[in-house]
Structure formats: structure tokens, C-alpha cells
């Protein structure tokens, strides 16, 4: 999508600057870079700083920020606004993310491009309220009911909170689907140096338009074009099973079968295009021990891998940037020659169990809960015990 003049001006002034800011604040700047036109949200620790900065800065770039009465209204507002052609997002944490699940399903079924940021905190329920966790990994995957696939990304630094927002908005438009930025309270609440990208490096994916305009849920391709409200065509949008033109048909088995398989396949079949990982192979190429991590846990994990190598142990490291769809090809390849894989996570082993489904080596969950991230030493100890 073309970037509008006032946003260009805003981003031109920002480009190249270095800020020492929270991961949350970097996420907010990322949204502005990504062309977010409309933000609706409700404050919750540790995500509030995203809304605070969006409220201050987004209007300067020509966007709209609205504080809603709760999280249900917030996600409903961004879905509605997306159908007017806007790039939309909300930001929340666990309890709010739970409230949003119903409408995340609605966005999946109506193929509405939008971005949901979940700055994960320790749950269930109010749990440790303000403390970080990575406990919503499976909720992001399966929180809403019914068969579906989902896209979720996890940043490991303040800089990446900005950078991945661009990917989130682009993926939402390319695949016409809600996309989740699965942050955590640790990365959201650390301050680090963040470089604001130059405007010339920014690209916004095109949101494909429907041809003909009424054919918004069908066609030969996996991702149908969209027709926005107010563009002159009759557009019907429903969370119930529907035909290519959006009209409801919940009685015909084939209609549901065709619709849902396509919605599922548009992500599943494009997994290799969507998935991003970061590999750090041991230089001798003979490692029998590997570590896979993501988000906050990947920082001390990577540090521990470096320390283990300094101590003479060959260890490989893989960071998942895309959490969903699951990087199964990359994970299988990574684990092919390993004896042991360690998976540090700030939960009780959610990705560790997902990995077990695909690999032959021994998988050891290095889980930590309680609102405090792993230390390098803790993960190093786990590596050395596995040697």
C-alpha cells in the first residue's frame, strides 16, 4: 500500500534516530512504520506503554487511536475498521487476550487482516499480574474454537519489537488473516537502543482486492481479494459459514468443508514462505547438543550456548522468530544429528512438546515460571548436565 504523505513526513523525520526505549515503545513505533491507521485498545500491564505511545504519536502520522471500554470492544473495533480498508491493531496481555479469543475466531472466519499484540504475563487469571511469562503460546495457536491455523511472531529484543510489527502487518494483508505479535513482559519492559529505520527501507504489502467485487470469500486462489465497505459493492461479512459472496450457508456440508479447508491451507500451505528462524551452528559442525528458544528465553539461552562453546562444548542454537505456523522443517533439520535438544521456555513446556512431535532426539524442557526469566547460568547448567 502506498504510504500517505503525512506519515511519510513523520517517518522521514524519525528515520535514522536512535532511541533508548522499552520494547513496548518500539512496538508502537513499529506499528506506525507498518502503516497502522487505527488502534483500539484497553490498558493492561505490561502492554499499556504500547497504547500510551500510540496515543501520542499515531495521530501525528495521520492515524486514529481510541481507548475502548474493554478488550472485547477493542478487537471488535479493529475488525470493523479493517473492513473499511484500514490497517488496524490492538495490544493487550493475557487476561485481555483471553477476552479477545471469540473475535479472533471471527477475524479468522471473516478473513480480516488485523494485528493483535499480546505482551504475555504470568497467568492463568490475574496470576502474577505484572510479571513476564511465555504461557500463551498454545493459547495463541488454539485459543479460539474450531479448526484454524494462525500466524504468530515472537521478538527477542526491543529492536525486534519494532521490526516484527512490519512483518505482522504485511503478513496480515498478504494472507488476509489476524496476526499475533507474541511479545512477553520481559522484552516489553526492558529498555535498549532501537534504531528507527529509514523510510526508504519500508515496504507495505498490498491488500489484494476482489475481482469481481462481490467475490470476497472464494475464487481459485487460497487468499481471496477483499472489497472494503463503502467501495460500492454489496458486501456481506459473517462469522457463520458462508459462500464466496459472503452469504450465509450453514446447512451444506460441502460449503463448510471448502471454506474451512481453504482458510486452513492458506497458512499451512505457505508455511515455508511465512516461517523465519535464526540459526547459530557450532563452527565444528559436529554438535550433539542443541538449544531451541524464542522471545525472552532466547536471550539467556543464546548467551549460555556461547559460554558452553567457550568451555569446549559443541552446541547448536536455533531461535524461532515465527512461532506459528510451526517451523517444523527447520526444527527437524536442526535436530537431525543431535542427541539432546534443550528447550528453555518461560512456561511448562508448550513448544518443547510441539517439538517432540517432529524430532527423534531426546527433548529436554528447561522450563521456568514464577515471573523471572532464565539466567545464562541456569541454561548453561542444563547444557552441561546434558553433555
Amino acid at each position, binding site marked *: 500500500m502506498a504510504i500517505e504523505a503525512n506519515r511519510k513526513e513523520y517517518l522521514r523525520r524519525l528515520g535514522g534516530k536512535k532511541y533508548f526505549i522499552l520494547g513496548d515503545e518500539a512496538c508502537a513505533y513499529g506499528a506506525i512504520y507498518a502503516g497502522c491507521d487505527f488502534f483500539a485498545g484497553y490498558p493492561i500491564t505490561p502492554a499499556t506503554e504500547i497504547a500510551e505511545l500510540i496515543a501520542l504519536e499515531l495521530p501525528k502520522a495521520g492515524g486514529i487511536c481510541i481507548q475502548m471500554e474493554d478488550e472485547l470492544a477493542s478487537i471488535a473495533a479493529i475488525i470493523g475498521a479493517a473492513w473499511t480498508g484500514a490497517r488496524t491493531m490492538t495490544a493487550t496481555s493475557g487476561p485481555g487476550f483471553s477476552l479477545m479469543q471469540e473475535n479472533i475466531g471471527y477475524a479468522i472466519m471473516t478473513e480480516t487482516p488485523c494485528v493483535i499484540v499480546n505482551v504475555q504475563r504470568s497467568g492463568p487469571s490475574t496470576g502474577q499480574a505484572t510479571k513476564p511469562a511465555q504461557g500463551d503460546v498454545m493459547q495463541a495457536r488454539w485459543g479460539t474454537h474450531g479448526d484454524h491455523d494462525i500466524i504468530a511472531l515472537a521478538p527477542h529484543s526491543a529492536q525486534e519489537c519494532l521490526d516484527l510489527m512490519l512483518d505482522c502487518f504485511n503478513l496480515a494483508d498478504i494472507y488476509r488473516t489476524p496476526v499475533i505479535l507474541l511479545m512477553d513482559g*520481559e522484552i516489553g519492559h526492558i529498555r535498549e537502543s532501537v534504531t528507527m529505520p529509514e523510510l526508504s527501507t519500508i515496504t507495505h504489502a498490498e491488500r489484494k482486492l476482489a475481482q469481481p467485487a462481490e467475490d470476497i470469500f472464494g475464487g481459485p486462489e487460497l487468499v481471496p481479494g477483499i472489497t472494503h465497505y463503502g467501495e460500492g459493492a454489496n458486501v456481506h461479512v459473517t462469522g457463520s459459514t458462508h459462500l464466496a459472496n459472503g452469504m450465509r450457508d450453514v446447512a451444506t456440508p460441502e460449503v463448510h468443508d471448502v471454506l474451512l479447508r481453504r482458510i486452513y491451507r492458506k497458512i499451512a500451505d505457505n508455511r515455508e514462505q511465512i516461517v523465519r528462524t535464526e540459526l547459530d551452528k557450532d563452527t565444528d559442525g559436529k554438535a550433539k547438543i542443541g538449544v531451541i528458544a524464542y522471545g525472552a528465553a532466547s536471550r539467556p539461552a543464546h548467551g549460555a550456548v556461547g559460554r558452553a562453546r567457550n568451555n569446549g562444548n559443541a552446541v547448536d542454537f536455533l531461535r524461532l522468530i515465527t512461532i506459528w505456523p510451526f517451523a517444523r522443517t527447520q526444527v527437524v533439520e536442526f535436530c537431525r544429528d543431535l542427541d539432546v535438544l534443550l528447550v528453555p521456555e518461560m512456561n511448562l513446556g508448550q513448544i518443547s512438546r510441539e517439538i517432540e512431535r517432529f524430532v527423534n532426539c531426546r527433548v529436554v524442557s528447561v522450563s521456568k515460571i514464577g515471573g523471572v526469566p532464565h539466567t545464562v547460568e541456569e541454561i548453561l547448567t542444563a547444557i552441561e548436565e546434558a553433555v
Partner: protein
Amino acid sequence: MIIRFAGFGGQGIVLSSYVLGLSAALDGKKALQNQAYGSESRGGECRGDVIISDEEIYELEPLKYDVLVAMNQPAYEKFVPLIKPNGTLILDRDLVVADSAQEPEGITKHAISATDIAFKKFGRKIIANMVLLGYLNTLLNLVSEKALAEAIAKNVPRGTEELNQNACQHGIDLARQEMKV
């Protein structure tokens, strides 16, 4: 280098850690700042951590510190055992009664009357944190004075820039005098 500032909410603990982290970033170093953030912190325990390094920072919440700046008794008692061997303890002597028995062996201890200086010299107890910040920075040579001054100027309430800079400078001078002896 891992530095923990700790004291009461309202003493400018988080600001001190933020200003130091920003200064390091302005100097082109890797820096990470983190703070205690919770409902239990209001009016009570408050802490701000800074990690400064020439290399990539992997540790997000270290368990041990190279430096503790303690601005009240509970913070001193809770965190002093977590100073690394050969680490540094800096106290506001007006607010903390030190007990050597609690302190790890081998640490270096410095105590200044930051609150007293802030009140008597500058008329504002609240800038004791800036006296400590200037003192700490010169003592341990963490960031450039230029970056520190810039970070303070950008982040203290408008109209108090000079006051805060002067308080910081006083801390710098104190450290210089001490180092000469």
C-alpha cells in the same frame, strides 16, 4: 558491568537507572535497563537495573550485581548479599546504617551523605539520586560526562535541569576528591 539502584518509590531510582542506561547508549555501548514494576512497589521497594557492555547482552535479569547503590535500609539489607565478589557498594549514609557482617567479603564500600548534600546545598532532598549518580559514574568510569549531562538534561522535569546537573556535578567532584586522596 551490572548496576542496581534500589530504594523507595519516589527517590528517582528508576530515573537514575534510565539516565545511566541512556548515557551508555549515547556513548555507543550496549545497554539494557530494567526496573521493578509491580503493585507492591508503590511507596515501597523500588529498583532499577542497568547492564552496560561492549558486547551483546544476553542476561535479562541478573541475580548478582557488580554495583549496588542503596538508598534505604530495606534495599541495603535485601540486596547487599547479592553484590559480586570484588563488587562495589555505594550508600546514602543518611538513609542506610551499614552492617559489615551482612556484606560479602572483598567488596569496596563507599558512603556519602547524598540526601544531606541535596537538602543543604540545593534545598531539595529529591535530587540525592543525582548526587549519587555523578559520584558513581566518576568513581567507576562508566559513561562519558557529556552523555550523562545530555541524558539528565533530556529527562528531568523542565526547569530543574540546572539543579539536577549541579547535583550530579557535586557527586562527580566528591568522587574526584576521594580518588585524589
